[in-house]
């Protein structure tokens, strides 16, 4: 935290950290969604895996993506930034694919996933979050070197 107080006028600093400032809010939201998706997947799989295996596996996959992005944001640095960018793109693609899929073929999903109906059950945050994160990560570009 001490380094971050040495910010210059433009808000860009040598030790630019992905998890600071607005990034802190992203870390929090990604953390929340990691817990939400993971606990949802675990509880549902334990209770009745046979009811909607596809939906539960998709929730579990979402949890893994969220966990990785959270970790990358906290870790920081150019490599983590690129990795997080790729994951955010995958996340956005996942939300859009699963969202369309759940609307097109409701019979494939007897139970909802985190990404059903474009994340409507989660206030559409699953769609908004990857876009916001990608904007943030792009802005962070150049300040972390490459």
């Amino acid at each position: 935290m001490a380094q971050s107080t040495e910010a210059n006028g433009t808000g860009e600093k040598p030790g630019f950290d992905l998890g600071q400032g607005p990034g802190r809010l992203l870390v929090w939201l990604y953390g929340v969604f990691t817990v939400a998706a993971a606990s949802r997947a675990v509880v549902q799989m334990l209770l009745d895996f046979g009811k909607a295996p596809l939906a539960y596996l998709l929730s579990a996959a979402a949890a893994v993506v969220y966990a990785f992005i959270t970790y990358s944001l906290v870790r920081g640095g150019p490599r983590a930034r690129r990795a997080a960018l790729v994951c955010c793109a995958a996340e956005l693609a996942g939300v859009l694919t699963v969202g369309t899929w759940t609307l097109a073929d409701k019979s494939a999903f007897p139970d909802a996933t985190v990404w059903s109906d474009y994340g409507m059950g989660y206030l559409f945050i699953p769609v908004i979050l990857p876009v916001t994160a990608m904007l943030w990560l792009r802005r962070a570009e150049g300040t972390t070197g490459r």
Partner: protein
Amino acid sequence: MIDALTLALGLAALALAAWCGFAFSRDQSTKDWHFIGMAVVTVLALAQLVIGVVRLAGGDKPAQGTAIFVAYLLGAAASVPAAGFMSLAERTRWGSATVSAGAVVLAVLEVRLYDIWGG
């Protein structure tokens, strides 16, 4: 009893969210008063957790399942303190935004808890 506490906690969470959102809009970090507010909300959430567990032990069954009910109770108790700790490390307006987001999460959890308990 549970319903009244759920309602109170939901409203308290929204008030906290608005308060910290106000600090965010004024470009302020979280202050001592905000942390006292967070503590009050957290105490309410912990009370809800204890009462919920006691009611379960007493033989009550939530409409949508015990495991989900307990998971949401734990999430509700953890969300505001977790956001509070993050705002301790982020002494800018974004720390306030984080607490505000945490309080909104709690309010949403309370709505879900109401559904899970009552069907």
